[in-house]
């Protein structure tokens, strides 16, 4: 049906061709017989001229893709130049010129794209935007006809997008090959689906994500089994749900740093990433009685309130026993808050001093409540030493111990 339509218009065009070039007085002069200078891509386009007496000139013909020479055929005493398909299929301006010594005849005509759409190229970017009013994404639509010509300027293009319950249709005008529409971000996070429509033909679906905006201030809390400084149990810190200024929960994986300042002023740190807006992080209980001040940050964007944790002492006192030429020091049994043996791994430190200068520092960990240090002869020569033992913030010093 379509083919037939094209055929009919083509015949009409051919019949209605009239001259647009000037008619010369010379009998050898050639005049154009076509009148129309507007064609549709894909039509058979033939330029007709009066038949001169002498030579039959070639027609030079050029468009933005290239140039060619066309030799004439003679039909009904007219010169007929039929444009090859690779020229007549492309929309745009075409310039022609007869290559003849006698006459200088040239002209131009336009080929318009077909008034239908074969494909719609769509480009959307960026693929994600930040919630709020500032950020936006741009949809660029390039509709083309069956011969891959961009549609004519001023063709109407509808860019549609859906977000939650609303569907918005924006009509934009095709200009210089493309049509584009800016889609502003939303306050709620979610997904925008975008498509476009040109002359009744629809594109496929495209996706743009609206991601939450920056986090705002939040609160923190903690969980623990007991508040004793046993160096073994774990305290968990957590945040309230981190939200942006529009009430969206921040994206999973948002990095939160918990700064913990202890009694001595040292800055301890633990880190967490959010899941459903909540970040959790863990720390081991200290082994000394402590007071921790905790505040969490999302660097440059948000911070929490400050909370304070107090750890009570788990070990009240401890025993030290020297044996084997005073070279073996046994600390313990170390007992916790219910007089139970402290869980394995409590750190015990032994300092060996000679005249107030540190000779060596031994780190030990408790096992079944006991810690044993062996002072090897290589390191600690036979002499008199002062020995200091530190356990869970407690300290005992033994002066003038003779090692042999």
């Amino acid at each position, binding site marked *: 049906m379509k083919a037939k339509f094209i055929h009919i218009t083509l015949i009409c065009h051919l019949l209605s061709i009239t001259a647009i070039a000037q008619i010369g007085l010379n009998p050898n002069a050639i005049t154009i017989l076509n009148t129309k200078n507007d064609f549709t891509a894909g039509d058979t386009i033939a330029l007709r001229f009066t038949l001169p007496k002498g030579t039959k000139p070639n027609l030079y013909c050029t468009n933005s893709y290239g140039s060619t020479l066309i030799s004439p055929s003679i039909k009904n005493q007219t010169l007929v130049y039929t444009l090859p398909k690779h020229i007549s299929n492309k929309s745009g301006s075409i310039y022609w010129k007869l290559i003849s010594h006698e006459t200088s005849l040239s002209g131009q005509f336009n080929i318009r794209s077909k008034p239908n759409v074969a494909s719609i190229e769509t*480009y*959307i*970017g*960026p*693929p*994600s935007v*930040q919630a709020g009013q*500032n*950020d936006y994404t741009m949809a660029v639509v390039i509709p083309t006809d069956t011969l891959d010509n961009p549609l004519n300027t001023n063709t109407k293009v509808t860019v549609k997008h859906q977000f939650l319950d609303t569907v918005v249709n924006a009509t934009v005008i095709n200009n210089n090959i493309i049509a584009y529409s800016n889609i502003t971000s939303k306050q709620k996070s979610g997904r925008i689906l975008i498509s476009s429509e040109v002359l009744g033909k629809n594109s496929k679906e*495209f996706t743009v994500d609206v*991601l*939450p905006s*920056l*986090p705002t201030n939040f609160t923190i809390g903690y969980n623990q089994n007991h508040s004793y400084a046993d160096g*073994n*149990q*774990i305290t968990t810190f957590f945040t309230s749900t981190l939200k942006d200024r529009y009430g969206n929960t921040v*994206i*999973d*994986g*948002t*990095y939160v*740093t918990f*700064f913990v*300042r*202890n009694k*001595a*002023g*040292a*800055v*301890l*740190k*633990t*880190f*967490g*990433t959010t*899941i459903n807006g909540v970040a*959790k*992080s*863990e*720390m*081991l209980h*200290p082994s000394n009685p402590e007071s921790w001040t905790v*505040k969490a*940050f*999302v*660097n*440059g*964007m948000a*911070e929490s309130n400050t909370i304070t944790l107090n750890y009570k002492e788990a070990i009240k006192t401890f025993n030290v026993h020297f044996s084997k030429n005073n070279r073996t020091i046994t600390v313990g049994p170390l007992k916790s808050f219910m007089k139970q043996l402290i*869980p*394995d*791994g409590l750190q015990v430190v032994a300092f060996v001093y000679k005249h107030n200068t540190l000779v060596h520092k031994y*780190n030990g*960990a*408790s096992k079944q409540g006991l810690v044993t240090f062996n002072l*090897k*002869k*290589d*390191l600690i020569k036979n002499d008199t030493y002062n020995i200091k033992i530190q356990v869970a913030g407690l300290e005992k010093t033994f002066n003038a111990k003779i090692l042999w």
Partner: protein
Amino acid sequence: MKKKSNKYLITALLIGLAFHGASIFFTLETTYDALIHLFFADHYSHNWFEPWNYKWYTGFSVMSYPPLVHQVIAGLSLIGGLKFGLFATALLGVILFITGVYRFSLLLSGNKVTAGYASILAVFSSSFVETLHVFGQLPSIIGISVLMHALPEVYLWLKTGKYRYLFTGLSLISVTVTSHHVTPIFGMVFFIFPLIGMVIMDVSKETVGTIKAVTFKLFVVSFFKLFKRIVSFGALSLIIIIGCILPYWINSKNNPITQVPIPHGSRDNFLEITSSGLVFFLIPWGCLLIILPYILYRYYSKRYLFFGLSISLLFVLGTGGTTPIPKIILGETAFNILTLDRFTLWASIMSLPIFGEFAYRFVEADLKQLIQHKFGAIYHGIIGAIIVGLFLFITVFTMSLGYFRPSQPQKIKMRPIVNFLNQDQHDQWRYLTLGFGDQMAWLSAQTNALTVDGNYHSARRLPELTTRPVERLENSKFKGVEGIGSLQQFLTVPEKYNLKYIFSNDKFYDPILYFCGWQRLQQLENGINVWERLNIPPISTVLPKDNVAKWQKILWGTLPFLTIIIAFILNIQLMWLRTLKTKLRTVPEYLKFRNNYASFSSVVLKTTHIWALLLAILFVYGLYKVYLKNNDHISPKNTVLAYYNALDFKAFKKAHSLINPKKKSSIAQYMLEISVSDGLLSSYAKLNAIKTTINFKNDSLATAKVVTNWITPLESIDKTDYKTLVKQNNKWYINIDDLNSYLPPDQLYSSNVTTYFNQGRRRITTEQTHHEDVLKQPVLEILSAKLVKFKTHYAIVGEVQNIDNVPADVVLKGTLYNNNNKALATYNAKYHLKHKLMPKETSSFKINFEGIAWSKTKDSIPKTFNPDEFTPVEFEEQPTKFNLQAAGNVSNSDLYKSFAINELNVSSNTISGSLFNSGTEEITIPQLLVSYYNLDKTLLWVDHLFLKDGIRQQRKKSFDYTILENEKITVINDDMSNCYVNGLPNKDIALKVIPNRIINHTQHQLQKINHPEYEFIKIEINAYIGNPK
């Protein structure tokens, strides 16, 4: 008289083909060189006339190696593939070698029986077996074999002056030249010169009748008689040596070897490094050592005098660095370029004719009679059995050397790697292999992808490679610190060479890959780990090459085969005649000088006996020394050494056997304890040096101070341990320390994390990624950046934050400029950056500007290089400005962030504390990034510390960090206007995402320290997970 074909030679050929033909399939592919020749052959099979190869070293010319053998393999590969070509060529080499030895022996002795014996012995010659089955030096074998074929022709030309012999001789020499360039050059000196001497002797002898009557004067007269022939032959040979591989010489002249020499075992002192002595001296000489007095005796007889001199020289040169003589003779340069093992190879080949003669005399002639007469038949039989047994034992041992001490990693199935490179356009980037050994050449032959590495070190071109004594990046860990130093430059700035993929067959390299910003991609089905680096542009479609003139290409492509064809036409008739004797023809001149074996000198027999006894004593003494060295319990020192070696080689069962039996736990408990200790020191360290001092020792107890140095991929670690040793049942044992006894409170843990998956292309298609599937680059913000000067070197320090909603892989590239905006240096952030950042995470960074290490001071490579140290760029002008380019790419790996700084104690010069691993992955290598601030809380410097031990799940680990010395740091420029993120100006893009940033938000959370230069520090943690679950 109809002549018979030589049954000994036929036997030798049959045995040779069966023996080598059967074993070659199990040995050749694991040799050092065979696969390199295969790679070259692959090149010729695709580009016969194009000498430029892009696959290695960002391009090199195959004109850097004589082409014949490679072209022969390439030609044969058209029939049955590359490996068929390789094996066929190797078998050709075997045939050429056996016949070559036969002809050489026949030339010397004039006796077909002894020559036949020599050819049989040649089959099992340990030096030949080693060269073929262990080293895989095909061109060298073919070169020397053809040279031996040329010798009789040369002799006949000099003796008779018939031109046909000149042509046949020269034709064979041209084949030698095109297969191996070094062989004819040294062959001239060591084989042809003595041969000329022998011809002159023979001519002199003919004049006076007996060899005894030949005087020096007569010798000179004869020399001048033959002078024309000698000179003409010498001149023509020279023309052939130069002419046949002219492009090679032109190439050598244009690209002189200006690289740092690569250490080679053949240059070692064999007495110090006994393994080199074994491989490069004992094995190639083998049984020949026993009859060395006889060989010298024979070669120093008047006729062979010049061979005597030659073999003596070869013997000495072959001893490498054992004596200073080779260095004096060859000169420093030649000594460092040549591999001296070839001298031993030639010496042993030169000995074969005499060995054949000895065998003949021992088996069926005068020596047999002498021994039987003196010592009896039984003694003769026993001696014979011992020599044959020893000879065969050495041969078998040599052939299976690769089995006892594998020179190569296990055979790697290349198909999955080749497929990986072919799919998804992965071959549009360069790749690198790690831990492949010489098999990397086989991979290169099979894929079109290019690598920055290569396996022919003379052709190395990149300054990063030529300034190091590193033959391949691939095995850089065996080259200690220089190797790792070379490798890390490629890993830090991979975009310079479009290096995107790394195939790792050795987990040793994993930490350096991680901390340089690489990420694990996948494990292929052959167990090879693929690592990739994001943000690397593909290789440009047009690559530079050094073009050569067309005539050179044509000459190179045609001449080698032409030499074969000409040699074939000229010689084949002779070959047939000489070996198979199908037609009666004149007897060659040299057969007139047939040796007669009538009476074996009893003095020589005596000398040989004494010599053999000496050797035997030496051998037994050597064995005793080895026993003393290898007995682990004989002294405390041995026990300590054995224990540390066992730990180094992960021989835990052996380590356990060295522990004090009274104190030790069961092997099961010990293995369990080992299995839970991971980390830089226990999993990635190689023992480099160990020094044991025994402080105290009595009958049953000893204490030792053990100072060890370990090479890890990241840094070199020095460690001092104090160990106690006890003696029980006359054996020394070591006491070990207890493990940390910490018990986590819970048995089972749960944890929630966000994981990410990057689809890549959603549609299964080979097309380039559709634009809808291209992920947005995460937006980063450079919070601060400044150019600082520390001592003599410059660095860019600052902080970067991922302000996007997806995890980002961060690449930071800094460029320094002078006042005139001239770019001075470019480098990337290496260890001083958390390369993976979660959304909103911040990392401090520092970019050091590394020069190509030691490029200026080639000879002052520090003995104690630390992989962590670097050579700062030498600036000719003062850098005053900087440009910083940050690139973010979505990453879904290495995002483990579950850790905490659980304790911290700050003293004036150290910070100690402990890290707590609160998650469900074991941290293999924790890293601390320590940032230093001044009183105004301005960032001045970033330092790092790798913790030696890993941290298991739910456990803590203590650390000690030494605060930097009082070094003044000058801020040169803190103008951030040239900072860019993903190509966009930093300020603009940051303002768009975070319009209301709280500036210096966490600065009041910095840690105060007592230091004259710095007021505050900040500690960040980065963690490498070795085995992600």
